[in-house]
């Protein structure tokens, strides 16, 4: 056996805590893992979304309670926490939707190339973060 063959690197299962933080992902990699994270976040916060739907459409009184949740809070949860959670939900929905449209576009157009993967991923990140900033500013009453 040659010296070269002996030094061949050996790949085993990676350790999530040790190895993952050292990985440098390309833009498409960030879009992919954030697609998954945003989906899981929305799944876990689904009861909150239904609660928001319930209080906002059920009656005038519950609508007032819904609006107040963002200012003075609801129950033991202060308004700022409700606002921040809403901001997370806004980002998660926007990112998931735009990344999903990117998926469908790629599937429909067979637009699978290294260049398009990168440029569309950058567009996804810029759009989702930009729209989140715009809607977040509205949420926090900046305009």
């Amino acid at each position, binding site marked *: 056996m040659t010296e070269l063959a002996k030094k061949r690197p050996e790949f085993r299962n990676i350790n999530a805590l040790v190895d993952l933080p050292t990985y440098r992902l390309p833009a498409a990699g960030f879009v992919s893992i954030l697609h*998954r994270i945003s*989906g*899981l976040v*929305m*799944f876990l916060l*689904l*009861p909150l*979304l*239904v609660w928001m*739907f*319930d209080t*906002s*459409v*059920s*009656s*005038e009184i519950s*609508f*007032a309670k819904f609006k107040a949740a963002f200012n003075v809070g609801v129950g033991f949860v202060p308004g700022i926490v409700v606002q921040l959670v809403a901001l997370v939900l806004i980002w998660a929905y926007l990112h998931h*939707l735009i990344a*999903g*449209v990117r*998926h*469908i576009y790629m*599937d429909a157009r067979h637009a699978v190339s290294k260049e398009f993967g990168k440029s569309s991923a950058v567009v996804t990140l810029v759009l989702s973060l930009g729209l989140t900033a715009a809607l977040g500013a509205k949420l926090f009453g900046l305009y």
Partner: protein
Amino acid sequence: MSVNYGSKRIVVGAHYGLRDWLAQRVTGALITLFTLVVLSQVLFTSGEIGYDKWAGIFSGQCMKALTFSIFIALTYHVWVGVRDIWMDYVKPVGVRLVLQVFTLVWLVSCLGWAIQVLWRL
């Protein structure tokens, strides 16, 4: 539905065909279109949106029926997506089964609540 139960199929698995892949895209597209419908109603409403205008968007029978289908589509979409997460990261069959059952109970509970809210409008 399928008769071909190969030796590698497991009870907490999936991805044995085109169905989930297509369903995920169809439901996703429906949710996107629904988002645009609701969003356009919000954007093209003149004046501040109070309770009447907001609840009015969902109160028509057509919109209720549409919203109902979207709730179903969303539930199926989340089921496929979250199950994929468990399948990728959770390998013990027993733990995965517990998580899948939790996911279904969580989803169906939310769906029931949302439908109740919708149909008493």
